[in-house]
Structures are given as structure tokens and as C-alpha cells.
């Protein structure tokens, strides 16, 4: 989304403008839902998280720095809420993916889709630069919603090692993503 348009929508959210909330929702609902669904694996819970997240974004609009971008705030909120729910649920998998659920369609315009395809390629490439243990750590924590202690148990290493792997991984990915942009 253009920066100007983002600023306009942020201003709208701050004024409690309904149309601005709809604008933000239409721009990001598909991506937000995709993220919530990946972490939670349950359609109904994922939709709850999406709704809560857009409301939280609106409530925080006054403190939102438009330079960081709406998408960035929204994903942070969605991820946080989805992981929170996963942990509350105790990971028992009471709910699961509906196999008939249309998994990947719509929710974004052609422009949005093209941007995401580019982005996907850069992120994929950045992940590929990581040593295997670091890549596994990023995927298990971010997409799998596992805690440091859970990853430590599974990978049979101390929690401190998991933390430092994450730190190295994110640092390296950042450099890789920066390079791919210049």
C-alpha cells in the first residue's frame, strides 16, 4: 500500500472512521487470516484472532508510527494473539484444519499478490542462507508457535542455545533481506 494511503487510513482509524477500518481490513484480511491459520490450524479460532487483531490495531492507532507500516503492526498483533491462544489451548489440537477449507484463494488484489510473491522469494532466499539448526529454530518458533523451552527439549540443546540461534538467524536474515533490496 502507498505510504500516503497508509497515512490516510491511520488518520481515519484515529478518528474512529468506520470506512478506514474497512479499508485496512480489505487490504490485509487475507494475509492476517493466513498467518493466524498457520499458527493455530483452526479456522474458527483464526477468524476470532483476525477480528481481535483488527480491533486492537484500531485501538492502538493513536500510538501507531505510520513509517513502520500498518502491515507490520498488524502482523505483530496477529502473531502475538494467535500464539497466545495456542498456548491457552494447551496444544491439545481440539480443533483442526477442515480439509475441505479453501486454503489459498483470494483475500488480496493482483497488486498485493504480486508484491507478496516478490517478498516471498526474498524471504525464502533469506531463510536458505541460514544453517539448518537456525532455520529450524525460526520455523518452529514463528510458524509452529513453540516456546524456547519447547524447542530446546525437542532439539535437545539448552534454552540459551535456542535463544542465540534465533538471534543469529534473525540478524543474518536481516542482512540478507537488506542486500536483496539494494
Amino acid at each position, binding site marked *: 500500500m502507498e505510504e500516503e494511503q497508509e497515512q490516510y487510513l491511520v488518520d481515519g482509524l484515529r478518528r474512529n472512521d468506520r470506512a478506514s477500518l474497512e479499508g485496512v481490513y480489505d487490504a490485509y484480511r487475507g494475509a492476517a487470516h493466513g498467518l493466524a491459520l498457520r499458527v493455530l490450524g483452526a479456522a474458527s479460532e483464526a477468524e476470532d484472532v483476525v477480528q481481535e487483531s483488527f480491533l486492537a490495531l484500531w485501538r492502538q492507532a493513536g500510538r501507531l508510527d505510520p513509517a513502520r507500516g500498518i502491515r507490520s503492526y498488524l502482523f505483530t498483533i496477529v502473531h502475538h494473539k494467535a500464539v497466545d491462544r495456542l498456548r491457552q489451548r494447551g496444544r491439545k489440537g481440539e480443533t483442526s484444519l477442515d480439509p475441505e477449507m479453501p*486454503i489459498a484463494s483470494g483475500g488480496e488484489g493482483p497488486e498485493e*499478490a504480486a508484491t507478496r510473491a516478490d*517478498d516471498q522469494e526474498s524471504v525464502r532466499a533469506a531463510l536458505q542462507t541460514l544453517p539448518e539448526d537456525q532455520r529450524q529454530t525460526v520455523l*518452529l518458533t514463528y510458524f509452529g508457535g513453540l516456546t524456547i523451552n519447547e524447542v530446546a*527439549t525437542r532439539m535437545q540443546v539448552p534454552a540459551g542455545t535456542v535463544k542465540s540461534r534465533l538471534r543469529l538467524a534473525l540478524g543474518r536474515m536481516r542482512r540478507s533481506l537488506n542486500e536483496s533490496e539494494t
Partner: protein
Amino acid sequence: MNDLTCQEIDESLAAYAVDALDRDESVAVEHHLAECRQHDAELGDFRSVTDRLPAMLDSVETSGRLRNSLLDAFDSAVGAPAPAEPMGATPQPPQPPRQPKRGTFAMPSFGYALAAALLVVAVGLGAWGISRGDDAPPGGVVVRTIEGSDHRVDFVYVPERQLALLSLELPQLSADRAYQVWQITDGGPVSMGVMAANTVTAMEIDLSDASAIAISIEPAGGSTSPTTTPILVSEI
């Protein structure tokens, strides 16, 4: 536990950025960050990466019901006194509502199986986390990869959990067509869903009657049975 040193924060900041800290530790980090500006830059760097990780995922359509429900909630909140979401310093994510502490997890659990299998599919690493002796679910795990010059399909099935993961990297189709995945049973093909050309999908499904999975190109909404010859078939 609200007396973490700056060094301890440095060590935990990346874990905080991916929401991987236990609740107590996460709250302690937030308290520190609310009062100490030394970590803003590094947290911003980490967030610049985590913000982009969702690009790996496909966008998923939301229901019209969700839209209405969101707007209803907005309307009633706007009608109510000024809303405020409690939180610490500005750049931090929203503070989670107070919840009872969770106990220890029973592991391995569905969540982990999903994460581990997702991992396998997402980066095509082979059978990490499944081939390891300590994690190997009884009953075996099916791992299939079909690869060609312009496509790659990874399929992982964990019978014990009736969990299937599919990673598709296929040529893009025109908007009126879609890829549809089928399980081939004695009774004929049964749809496993319509999928986009490049996607990673997890589903809970019983494939015990399936002898193979197949992918065909169908009209955008999918078909009740294949209308074209499958482009890929893999025996299970």
C-alpha cells in the same frame, strides 16, 4: 522477575520478537523495554525480519460473517466510552490479557507434529524431526517428493495423527482454473481440496484408504470428481 539486566534482554530479544518466550519472561522483557530505550534499535531490526515472514504463507479468504462481526464490534465500541488497550511502550506489541498460567505441555503433541511436519515441507529438508528416533511416531510416516524442471510437490503424511502436509510449487494457472488434490481410494478419487500453485497446506485427514494422491487441473471452484487427467500421481 522484573529485574532483568540489559545483557539478559539482549539474549532474549530475538525470542521475544517471535513470541517464543514463556509468559513470565515475556512480561519481564516488556517491563524492561518500557523503561529502557537501549534495545529499541535491535528490536526494530528483528521486527523488520519477523514482519516479512508471513509472506511465506498464502493469503486466506475470510468469511463475510467475519466482516460483519468486526464492524458490529467496532460500532458498539465506538458507541461506548473511549476504548483503550493497556500496553507498555509504543513499539511493543499489545500486552496480552491476564490469563491463568499454563502448565507443562504433554509432548509430543499435535502442535509439535504440525510444526515439525510443516518444517519439513516448508523448506523441503527431508524428514527432519520425523526420522529422528525419539520423535518417530509409530506407524511410520509417508514422505513423497515429486520434482521436475518447473514443479516440486512435497507430501508428508503422519498416519498416527492423520495429519497431511502438502507443499506445491507448480506453474501458475489462469484465474479460471485451479489445482485440485485427490486421494485415490478403491471407491474412486476423493477431493482433498483446491489449492493455489504455490502453497503450503496442512490438513487433518484420514488417508488410510488411499492408495495414492493425485493432482489435476480443474475449474477454479474445483470439481466433485476429476474432469482432466491428473498431472501428477504419487503412490502412498
